[in-house]
């Protein structure tokens, strides 16, 4: 699960049935040099590309979320769904102290 800051949302008009009722968040992913410490996410955008993440936890703009990528992202769905990034947690606080 990677962490990232929600920087936008996507609204789909025509989708496959499995996506109905889904919310989509655009996330700026944290990297080693651009990571949250404490309660506030770092300002500015990350240099990594921003994925669109499926969300049913209610992540809002500016929230820090933990999103899972890969096949595991489609596990919570009842029928097979082509989702490869899902919001698994909304972070309250992050304690991060990397060794140099």
């Amino acid at each position, binding site marked *: *699960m*990677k*962490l990232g800051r929600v920087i936008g949302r996507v609204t789909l008009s025509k989708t496959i049935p499995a996506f109905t009722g889904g919310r989509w968040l655009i996330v700026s*992913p*944290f*990297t*080693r040099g651009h*990571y949250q410490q404490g309660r506030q996410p770092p300002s500015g955008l990350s240099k*990594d590309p921003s994925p669109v993440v499926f969300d049913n*936890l*209610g992540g809002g703009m500016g929230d820090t979320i*933990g999103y*899972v*990528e*890969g*096949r*595991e*992202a489609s*596990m*919570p*769905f009842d029928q097979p769904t082509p989702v490869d990034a*899902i919001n*698994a*947690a*909304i*972070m*309250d*606080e*992050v*304690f*991060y*102290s*990397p*060794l140099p």
Partner: protein
Amino acid sequence: MYLARVEGTAIATKKHPSLNGWRLLICQPLDAEGKAFGAPQVAIDPHGAGLHQMVIISSDGAATRQAVRDPKSPARWMVTAIVDKAGRATAAPKKSAS
């Protein structure tokens, strides 16, 4: 599975129910020389690894789903072991005196 170093923890109250009660450790994957590579991954930790401790993290979602006992959990990364010593064999293996 990656060799990784624990570099932090994350606290989340609103999350997928299968993650309730699990420690979320921020683990930085390390390469063979012990240098960081890639983005830090948040893994669930059943072993109580400490800060800056070396661990092994696994991306096998099937094993993680069994650990959290929820076949529909999106959890993927998990700390599977705490490393005592990690070193690369540099010298050629000594010939046994046979």
